[in-house]
């Protein structure tokens, strides 16, 4: 429902996994009698010499430091900032606007999400079938979509719950004069498991 970029999530997990797998594979190759193990010492000497050469050719204010370190630091900071942005983008997509009418000469009508949310919440609040109910509004594919999530008591038929909420949505349609897309999420959850079951019939 939210605007989380799921492909990015999988990319981060996949790339991290790939790097960790490569590190593990190298460690295995060093541990086992392979070509990599035999050539490790030579390779290490060559790599050390090359890196030392680079660091000495790029002095920064003296022979002890190199501006290559600054490049490395900049790369680390850039990646870290990208990752922080990535984290902050998770779970967004709430909207406070439900409907926006096209502007006319007399002005524009805007309906806020709070209206629909409160109307529905009010209608569902005192229902014995539900332990909790919550209504929120998300922006999906440039449309405002209502999300009605309820936690049911044990033994409640999901069909009855859906019919009940659908009915309330239709009342809302009548009130607004427009059919707002909606998602109904029926869950059990921990509180349903520990709370006592209530007979409804």
């Amino acid at each position, binding site marked *: 429902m939210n605007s989380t970029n799921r492909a990015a999530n999988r990319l981060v997990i996949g790339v991290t996994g790939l790097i960790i797998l490569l590190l593990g594979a190298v460690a295995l190759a060093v*541990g086992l009698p392979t070509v990599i193990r035999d050539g490790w010492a030579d390779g290490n000497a060559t790599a050390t010499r090359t890196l030392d050469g680079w660091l000495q050719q790029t002095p920064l204010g003296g022979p002890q430091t190199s501006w290559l370190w600054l490049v490395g630091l900049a790369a680390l900071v850039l990646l*870290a900032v990208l990752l922080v942005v990535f984290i902050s983008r998770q779970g967004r997509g709430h909207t406070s606007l439900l409907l926006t009418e096209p502007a006319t000469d007399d002005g524009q009508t805007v309906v806020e999400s709070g209206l629909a949310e409160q109307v529905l919440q009010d209608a569902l609040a005192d229902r014995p079938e539900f332990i909790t109910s919550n209504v929120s509004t998300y922006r999906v594919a440039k449309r405002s979509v209502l999300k009605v999530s309820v936690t049911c008591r044990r033994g409640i038929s999901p069909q009855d719950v859906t019919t009940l909420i659908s009915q309330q949505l239709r009342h809302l349609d009548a009130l607004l004069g427009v059919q707002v897309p909606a998602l109904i999420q029926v869950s059990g959850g921990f509180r349903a498991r520990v709370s006592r079951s209530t007979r409804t019939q």
Partner: protein
Amino acid sequence: MSITRTTAGATDAQSVARTGTAAGAVDRPGGGTADSPAVTERLYRRISRRELHSPRSLLAIVLAVLIVLLFVYAGVEIVLNMLGQPALVASPSQVATAIGAADTYPTGAVLVVGSITALVGIVLIVIALTGGRRARHLLVDDRAAVVVDNEVIASALARFAARAADVDPDNTSVTVTHRRARVDITPTSGQPVDATAVLQVVTTKLAAIELRPAVTATVHISRSGKVGA
């Protein structure tokens, strides 16, 4: 427009809703609502697909945080090294030396660490590539997209099965998976349970709940009963 309608108008929900939708389709270009059934259908399909699969957010966030922490630490070591200060744990050159000496470490330890690391990597790749289906089903409804947790379906079926079998609900357990619902009943000692009757009730109830994908029920009666259940 219709916002001004009072609750009196809401009593005739059906007809008002219909006129409202028709009007909305005309004067709502780029507005906040779905305007045609096909558009709504596509929107609902998208929402349903996302609700039925895990976003993998938690793992991605944990990994991102760990990587950022690692980068911050590496950055601090680099700065300390550039300033000629003693390292917190190991300076970059010490790390390089340690990696270079990998072939002199005890083979067993290197292999164990390597295997565990590789395994973690493989698990992450598998998680990144697999579907991550949630334990939920879609329920067909003509007004909204509906997702129902499997445990809600199971708990409803358990109530009906317990009533049909005339046992306590606590002696009935139902497991709902992607396409199956397995009903396990422990009968009260001395009172045989008619499995066919229970299956019929459960199947009828399942048919009434239009689930996608459809779920087929099986009933298993435990051989040993419980006394006083």
